[in-house]
């Protein structure tokens, strides 16, 4: 039982990471109807930026917020410069452009920072917290808290600010939004900026656990996809819960299902994606998409 609880707890911790990246994916999907395949690499690159700032002697939180600002502006720039020309192109063209971004970021990171694995500092205290016989990693708890705070902020932003309302409107019905004076193009750019920012947070939170290297996001990204699918691509809350659930599932399966272990980790994510999409394509918390014929 203790092992079980311990696994659930550490599952929730990794789940927090999946949740923040899944949140970023859902954000972009909601704001722009695009699934950004480059999301993971953008997050990785931001994490490297934070890392080099810390190496230059900037204190942790300074580097943290500076990175978020750069990621936000970078996301907006990417949308304005790279994505905008193909905005009205067929969906495959956009997918290809995202893939282009993915390889560019991956390769640039390898070129600038080399493929050597680097340790990354954690802002939280090191001493583990014990409740009963279950150990909580302080970094894990911190990561979950950061994710939850982000979710709350996003919720407040989308629900109670006029800018948030404008963004939702632009994604939902671009033509009518334009008629009432919303600058739809800029709303999309803002969506990309926010998602890049969320990705940066996810990268910085995950780097102390899995270490920093250009390919660090591959496995995480697929789990984030699975989380977003499980929670529903239309629901930010679903993405967070899906992420936590995926973390727990991953740990429990790794511990208790012998023939899967950790070697078939990605296959578990694949199976979950397939099952969810087949049985309940809108996910646990999403709205079913309704099309007008």
């Amino acid at each position: 039982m203790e092992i079980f609880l311990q696994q659930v707890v550490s599952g929730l911790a990794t789940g927090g990471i999946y949740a923040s990246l899944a949140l970023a994916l859902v954000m972009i999907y909601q704001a722009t109807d695009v699934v950004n395949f480059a999301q993971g690499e953008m997050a990785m690159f931001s994490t490297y930026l934070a890392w080099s700032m810390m190496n230059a002697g900037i204190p942790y939180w300074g580097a943290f917020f500076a990175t978020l600002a750069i990621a936000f502006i970078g996301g907006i720039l990417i949308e304005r410069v790279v994505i905008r020309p193909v905005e009205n192109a067929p969906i495959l063209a956009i997918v290809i452009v995202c893939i282009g971004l993915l390889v560019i970021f991956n390769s640039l990171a390898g070129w600038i920072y080399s493929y050597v694995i680097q340790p990354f500092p954690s802002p939280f205290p090191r001493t583990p917290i014990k409740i009963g016989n279950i150990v909580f990693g302080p970094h894990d708890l911190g990561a979950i808290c950061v994710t939850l705070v982000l979710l709350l902020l996003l919720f407040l932003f989308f629900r109670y600010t006029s800018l948030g309302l404008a963004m939702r409107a632009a994604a939902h019905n671009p033509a009518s939004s334009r008629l009432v004076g919303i600058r739809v193009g800029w709303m999309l750019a803002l969506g990309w900026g926010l998602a890049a920012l969320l990705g940066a947070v996810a990268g910085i939170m995950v780097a102390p656990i899995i270490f920093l290297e250009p390919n660090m996001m591959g496995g995480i990204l697929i789990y984030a996809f699975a989380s977003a699918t499980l929670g529903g691509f239309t629901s930010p809350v679903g993405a967070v819960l899906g992420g936590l659930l995926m973390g727990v599932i991953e740990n429990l399966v790794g511990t208790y299902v012998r023939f899967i272990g950790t070697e078939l980790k990605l296959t578990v994510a694949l199976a979950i994606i397939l099952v969810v999409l087949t049985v309940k394509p809108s996910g646990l918390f999403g709205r079913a998409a309704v099309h007008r014929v």
Partner: protein
Amino acid sequence: MMEGTASAARISAPARPTVAGLSVWSWTIGGLVLVIAIACALPLLLSGFKLFQFTQVLGYAIALLGLNILTGYNGQISLGHGAFYALGAYTTAIMIDKWSVPYGFAIPVAGVVCLVAGFLFGIPALRLEGLYLALATFALALAVPQILKYFDSWTGGSQGIVLSKPQAPFGLPLTSDQWLYFLTLGTTLLLFLFGWNLLRGRIGRAIVAIRDHPIAAETMGINSALYKSLVFGVSACYVGIAGALVGLAVAFVAPDSFNVFLSITLLVGIVVGGLASISGALFGAFFIQFVPNWAQDISKAAPWAIYGVFLIAFMYLMPRGISGFFHRLWRRLLRAGAKPAELKRS
């Protein structure tokens, strides 16, 4: 009444468009003959590694045609066709290595295995549309190397399977590289002919109708579910045969050569070559075989960054792919060719 207008239209129709005095049909046939002749002459001009690269181009062309039938013509996005490429390559390799099956049998069997696997994967794919399908297949592509390593008693784990290149049969005076090239060329021609035949008729129209308007297609009596899973199967079969041929040409299969970048490369190939076009498969194959090498020549440090820039630039400049670009060029030539004919008549 209807007949009257039709014949009137026929009378007033301009003379058949020509380019440089030859009809479109003769240009097409001439072009095809020229391409095939060059393809047959290549082994005499190139040797060793260069020829092997062209064998790979042909293999990619088969795979790209398969993926194009699915994504370009039927509108189902797949980011996971590297999985079927791997399945084809491994089926062949395991049959040759473990059971000493001659490769002449192993390749078609690999095709059939992929056909069945693709058909089965196509059934859950029915529930998925657009980006969701891209996602599910993307996960498939990521999971492939793990699955291959897991069944190591069959696949040899990360060591992979080493094969020996087949010798030319019937005492033909060819090296094994040349023989593999001709084998791949023959298969490519056969599969392209089959693909062209499949797409130009009733079935092809049904496939395209499902892409353009699924509901209207069903109303016209097209069994959308059956067609979609069958197209998935046929597409996987093409990709599997390509994997089998290239696996044989490389004489080595290992899990890490079937990573997610292979699947991405295939998708890049069809989009760059031109969606929903048969010639696009060939252009795309050249692109994915040679452009990464050029990128490497431009920048040793970050070849993939250059490749990414190429990709994005391509999407801006030629959104319909290379074949779309040539198509437009051709149309312009036709119009230029048609004008003098009209002048003469008036």
